[in-house]
């Protein structure tokens, strides 16, 4: 018997008020590095948030490693969309990373040394160990994003759901982040990331889910990321650049 998929979504339907955003999505993630791609308003973030139970769904459900989320919370990590947090907040980079381990600690007293070390290790992974004590508002945008990546990594999960990990970061940070993600996957874990740059999908990811309210195509990048599928996902809304990628297919 094969291991259950890290994330299996069945018949997921989500609506905001009268507007249906996701239509009957059924999708099984393959272990590895997966991109969720689609035009604006395609429901990419909604898919992650509904799977995590952060927003209610009308129908369908999501299973992680064959179980309900509550049973395997510790195995699922989450990186929210470039957090709309208060950057003046009294918290250092290390504080923020430690937050991901709060559910495993006692709620009061000092942070246990083991947990602190785990958080420091995660900061090390993203190359920010020397800035651990700096207040988050005094980090650059790219560093902030890496702190949040470290926070997700510190959850020590087997599956990471990441909402636009590359949003608003410069090219160097993007490369650094993708290198981290590759290491994570090489260690036998899975990453599912919402991604908005069609051009880098084949270079960065192993698998892809093309989304446009419904699941248009899914599978290995080589098989599923076809011009035809992209055109279907984006309808008439491809811009010139994306069109070029779509027609050129895989380079």
């Amino acid at each position, binding site marked *: 018997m094969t291991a259950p998929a890290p994330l299996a979504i069945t*018949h997921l*339907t989500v609506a905001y008020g009268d507007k*249906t955003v996701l*239509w*009957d999505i*059924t999708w099984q993630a393959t272990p590895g590095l997966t991109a969720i791609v689609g035009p604006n308003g395609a429901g990419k973030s909604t898919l992650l948030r509904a799977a995590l139970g952060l927003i209610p769904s*009308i*129908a369908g459900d999501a299973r992680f490693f064959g179980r309900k989320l509550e049973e395997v919370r510790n195995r699922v990590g989450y990186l929210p969309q470039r957090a709309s947090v208060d950057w*003046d907040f009294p918290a250092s980079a290390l504080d923020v990373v430690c937050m991901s381990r709060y559910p495993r600690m006692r709620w009061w007293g000092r942070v246990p040394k083991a947990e602190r070390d785990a958080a420091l290790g995660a900061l090390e992974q993203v190359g920010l160990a020397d800035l651990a004590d700096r207040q988050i508002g005094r980090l650059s945008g790219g560093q902030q994003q890496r702190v949040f990546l470290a926070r997700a990594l510190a959850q020590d999960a087997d599956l990471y759901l990441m909402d636009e990990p590359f949003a608003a970061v410069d090219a160097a940070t993007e490369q650094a982040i993708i290198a981290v993600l590759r290491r994570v996957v090489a260690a036998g874990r899975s990453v599912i990331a919402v991604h908005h740059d069609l051009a880098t999908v084949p270079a960065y990811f192993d698998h892809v889910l093309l989304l446009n309210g*419904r699941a248009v195509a899914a599978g290995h990048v080589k098989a599923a990321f076809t011009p035809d599928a992209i055109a279907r996902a984006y309808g008439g809304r491809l811009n010139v650049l994306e069109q070029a990628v779509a027609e050129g297919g895989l380079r």
Partner: protein
Amino acid sequence: MSLGYNTLVVLLGCALLGLACGTVGAFALLRGRALMADAVGHAALPGVVLAAMIVATLGGNPRALPPLLAGALVAGVLGVLAVQALTRGRRIREDAAIAIVLSSFYALGVALLSYVQTMPQAAQAGLGKFILGQAAAMRAEDALWAGGIAAFSVLICLVLFQRLRAACFDPDYARVMGLSVARTDLMLLALIVIVAVAGLQAVGLVLVVALLILPAATARLLTHRLPVLLLVSAFLGALAGALGAAASAFEPEWPTGAAVVLAGAIFFTLALLLAPERGVLPEAWRRTRRRIAATESHFLRAAWEAQEAAGAGPGTAGDRWTPIAALAAARGWSEGHASRLALWLGLRGLLARADGEIHLTPRGAAAARRAVRAHRAVELHLLGLGATDIAGADRLADLVEHGLPAEMATRLLAEPSSLPASPHALGPRS
């Protein structure tokens, strides 16, 4: 009691004041500045007290309104400036800044008030009225002042209507059009200060903010169009002001501010519950009706499809009775639920019942056919899109077919009057 000249003037003054608060409040609410009035109102207290102290020390009449209002105006402006200074560093957000200003200015006012009480010249006389408002204590002269200021601010609103509208609805567009939003905001703030100060004596500084928020919020529940919103807000403000003043005239002990605000709160509550589009009750009623209609059409469709599966059809030779149990199985309902639905539909004359079986009446058959058509139209459309598999289409169609306009079903189906075969087998659900 008869309405004396004084009472009448006070009543009119309060109505005019409510009108002004409703008008300015509408813009303030749309621009997200309504709570500024709370800061201004509370900040006015030390200004009023200081003005009274100065007037008393100079030997003037500390009850004369103009110096007190001038003091309130100065302090109110200082309060607004303080809020802006606090938020400039971005460390302190507007909510905190407003709370800081309103509480510490008010506290200063309270401390000054306690000092004034030790002064010999009865300077404190009547100052307490500014806190909760007491229209009964207003003289015609005071009402004229308040009414005059209110009328002035309404006039300004009318003159600035286009600019205010642009700033409220689409600040970016206004900027592109070359209208300075910052300047418009400043004028709006000035208007807020003016009406809040004008309202002090009648409504009181603690509650004057409510007279800016409640009528405007009520109007927003009732309409989306700005001119209508303004009219409704102004009218409700005037009504609340007049009612409060009237209450104060009959029961001089009642704090007028509370009466005015309660009137506004009642309007708002009614709108919250009953507003045709957004109200809680109409919305619940619509939802219930949709749910009932959906359940009805699911039942009727099951009845139709049960016939269809048996190769018969309503109105044909093979027309026959269907056990309720079979319908319950087809929908995955409990039999009790299905029986209750059958009873209800029987009462509506859509089917006949006997011995646990049902039979569609002609009217019921027509309704059932419409339901089947809508369901299959959606189902086939979804399948045609490649959106989902057959079972998924069935489930989705169950969710969205209701409320599908007739012309939509016609557009989705190639043959206007045809009834396509179901894409899936009919029978009990797994």
